[in-house]
């Protein structure tokens, strides 16, 4: 680990002034620092800031950036009205990690691509221009959607997948733009030619909260397929909210984890479903859309059929089609 300065921020302005790397729970950043994948000269500890509350108003829920994954999963309103989120959180990491992990930190956790973690290996995300060792290497856990020829990393979060299905918006405070509310597709940037850039955040920008709109109508589910029962990242995960009325699907929101560099949502999939009567054939059509542009890289080819099957099973569960 490289030596670093440590600053404990007392207000958001101090974060911007300090100009260092923000640390919250530290469960991801500290590992990255020990491996010298990230080598910040200054750490700005934001855990004393007032971002620890979950505030409820009539039409939304505002989750402070420092709310831990455990607290959020256990929150009464979340469990009742946003169960997809609660379940996604509980499907992630372990009890110990969830006690430390924060909402803001979880959104910004970095990929688990093995080559990213080994500084002796080429990796465009860690060392731009050095190449992507995963493309033709061990890529079982990597992306089939939204990737580029520079990087096929996945975003490993479960929480963010549920938030994507819930149309969450991320509240960011920046020195230049003040307070902004960003959709998740605005917040996360696809790798393209610059996989080292993962979000629109600039140095010193602070995530202050995540906003959830009013609880959606319909049934919710989070399903995570993984190599062991717990404490494993998703091979494929599906966050789904589906409402049916009079035998037809009226609303559908589907987001996917384990497949792409960011929580993946494809409006085309939802368009196939909405207005139709749920059926196996309909789900197949929607699945066709989901994987239309999917590209396997060898080890991870299996994710294409697995994503289909999992999505269809979740839709069956939510609509009662057997």
């Amino acid at each position: 680990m490289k030596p670093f300065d440590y600053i404990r921020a007392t207000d958001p302005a101090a974060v911007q002034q300090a100009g260092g790397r923000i640390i919250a729970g530290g469960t991801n950043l500290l590992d990255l620092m020990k491996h010298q994948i990230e080598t910040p000269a200054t750490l700005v500890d934001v855990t004393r800031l007032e971002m620890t509350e979950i505030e409820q108003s009539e039409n939304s829920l505002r989750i402070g950036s420092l709310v831990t994954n455990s607290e959020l999963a256990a929150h009464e309103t979340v469990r009742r009205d946003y169960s997809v989120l609660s379940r996604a959180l509980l499907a992630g990491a372990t009890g110990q990690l969830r006690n430390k992990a924060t909402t803001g930190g979880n959104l910004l956790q970095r990929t688990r691509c093995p080559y990213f973690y080994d500084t002796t290996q080429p990796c465009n995300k860690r060392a731009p221009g050095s190449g992507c060792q995963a493309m033709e290497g061990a890529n079982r856990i990597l992306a089939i959607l939204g990737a580029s020829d520079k990087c096929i990393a996945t975003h490993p979060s479960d929480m963010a997948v549920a938030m994507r299905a819930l149309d969450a918006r991320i509240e960011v405070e920046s020195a230049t733009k003040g307070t902004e509310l960003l959709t998740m597709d605005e917040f996360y940037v696809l790798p393209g030619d610059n996989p080292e850039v993962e979000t629109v955040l600039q140095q010193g920008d602070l995530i202050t909260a995540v906003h959830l709109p009013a609880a959606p109508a319909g049934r919710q589910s989070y399903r995570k397929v993984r190599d062991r029962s717990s404490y494993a990242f998703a091979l494929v995960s599906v966050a789904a909210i589906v409402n049916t009325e009079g035998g037809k699907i009226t609303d559908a929101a589907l987001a996917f984890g384990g497949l792409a560099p960011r929580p993946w949502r494809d409006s085309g999939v939802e368009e196939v479903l909405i207005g139709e009567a749920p059926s196996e054939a309909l789900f197949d059509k929607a699945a066709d859309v989901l994987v239309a542009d999917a590209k396997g890289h060898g080890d991870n080819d299996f994710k294409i059929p697995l994503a289909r099957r999992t999505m269809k099973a979740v839709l069956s569960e939510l609509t009662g089609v057997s």
Partner: protein
Amino acid sequence: MTEHLKMDKVQPRMLDETGQGAIHKPMTRPEGPLKVSGTATYAAEWSLPNMAEGVMVRAAITKGTCEIDESSVKDMPGFVGIYTDRMVRNSAQGTMGTNPVQPEGEVHYLGQPIAVAVAETLEQARDIAQSLAVKYTPADGAKTVMDDSTEFEDDDDPVDMGDLDKAMSEAAFSIDSLYTTKPHNSSAMEPHAAVADWEGDRVILRGSLQMLGFNKNELADSLGIDVSNVRILSPYIGGGFGSKLGISPECVAAAVASKKLGRPVRVVLHRNNVFEMITLRTETRQRMRLACDADGKLTAIGHENWQTNLPGESMAEPVDVATHFLYGGENRRYGQHIARLNRSASGAVRAPGEAVGQLGLENAMDELAEAAGIDPIEFRVRNIPEKSPESGLPYSSNALAQCLQEGAEMFGWSGRKGPKERLEGEWYLGMGVASAARSNILMESRANVTLNPDGTALVQTDMTDIGTGTYSILGQIAAEMLGIDPSKVTVELGDTDLPEASGSGGSWGAASAGSSVFLGAKGIRTKLAERLGCSPEELRLQDGVATGANNRRPLAELMDGPITEEGHIEPGSTSNDFEQAGFGAHFAEVAVNKVTGEVRVRRMLAAMAAGRILNAQTARSQVWGGQIWGIGTALTEEIQHDRRTGHIVNNDLAEYHIPVNLDVPDLDVHFVDERDDQSNPMQIKGIGELGLSGAGAAITNAIYNACGVRVYDYPATPDKIFPHLD
């Protein structure tokens, strides 16, 4: 005085007569409170005055040479030194007793230790290790995958009895299947660590090692010093599973650096280094050929294997070890082929041989039972031979049939149905069985036993407790033999200055070190009998009172001071004249998700016959560990190498998936009551590895029974199963 026994003939069943009641009891570990309160000092927890910290530097290429540029880091904060001399390439193979150092600057695999960076603090040492400039010159010809184009070193003299091909072609039923297993890592909870300090010419090494008698010689060899100048202390070990059998790179590096610096040096392997620098279990390919007649009697067994290791490593996984003696059949063929690859060295990992060989054999048995239309338990029972089928030796004891049958009854085997016949929501349910077998071994071992007039006792040996419960059972054996409560016995282990024991490995520790303690205590009994005026056979010792020849005296009255006896056991002709093995049967019930192919184990039962059970609790824990390991083997554990570089990509416990709590259901263990008279004077057999042997096969057989998908390529991750489901 020494009480010596060479195990040439059956010994009386003394432990059935002694009557203190300390044996077999489920006794908790005497050192347990120290461990849970953090006061048992593990190697890395030693902090000596003025100690420097070392971090291993790993090679970044697969094959070639390297030159280290010390000047690149000399000015970094806390820099103490970079040492490259006497580096060992990987941990030594078990029971070698030697560990030659590598020519400086050679790289044989990616992740190999090439230097140790020493600094004032761990963080500084790590920074220096990561910043060190190394100039690499890659060499051609690196080999990193075993495939059809690989050259193999073949076994010169494989067993070939009868005519396998003919038997296969003439059989009523036969199968010819290829099974593959991926490499495994021991993943002991405590990473390898060493603290070295020199007193003059003598190195004192605090390490985490399983076999100190061998390790002291290996360290002496690596350092080029006399073994009398080596003292190793290893009283507490957080798991070994074979990974700590041989001296490992951090021990040699710490000793070298400490000698040069004249100050203590600590080197702790990072988990990533443990995966790369420490021996792991080879991947295997296993071709299974089995044939039987119309009555389900085996006529042929073929078990051929392909595996990998670094050039120059002597260890080969004895994949077919249990196949030689488990089932009958006149036509038998074996073969072993080793590919020399530039990847981390292969070595012993818990139950070398059986852990993977039983997967091939026991799945093949299931396949053949099905082909023949016979229940898998009945099929196995029909094929248990009278005597060992190749050597013709009698079994010292063989309760396999009893394990299978009692186990089946307990597990509710009669409720088993066919593939896809039990569906619960999205989950197919099924049951599987597999036989367990593990050769039983006795090794030379010594211990001192001291009895004090106040009824306390002391056991001293350089034996290790790698988490198995050695402290408990050695205390229990001494207590039983001396007629005192186990709480009165102090056990001192893990110091090469104490009498040399077998070390922990091969499931021989309890039998070997235990027999030495038994013998030392027996020597004390002889002395007490003399003093009481009775024969040793007549002597009864219970609760600190000696009785015999119509005499009854408290120990304090019989003794004017402590009595110390050395116990010394040596294997004898019973090791050669009998096929000695523990046997057992594993049962598993699993659920397979018909959408995703995810497998969850619902319950397991192990019915084990391992001779006398010394401590029902620690023995059960060993079997639990084996069953859990079986879950990992069957479902999740695999080292993934980059095909181009041999780089281990999942070199941490986030991505190398050992089972977590939620993967482990209720585990049942049933011990079949047994005494093995040929094994040792206590009639016990090894249990630690037996509990693992076959456990994974019971799970994959259950997967087949649940959903009709036969897993040929371990582990059975979801991607191997769902494509075969509709």
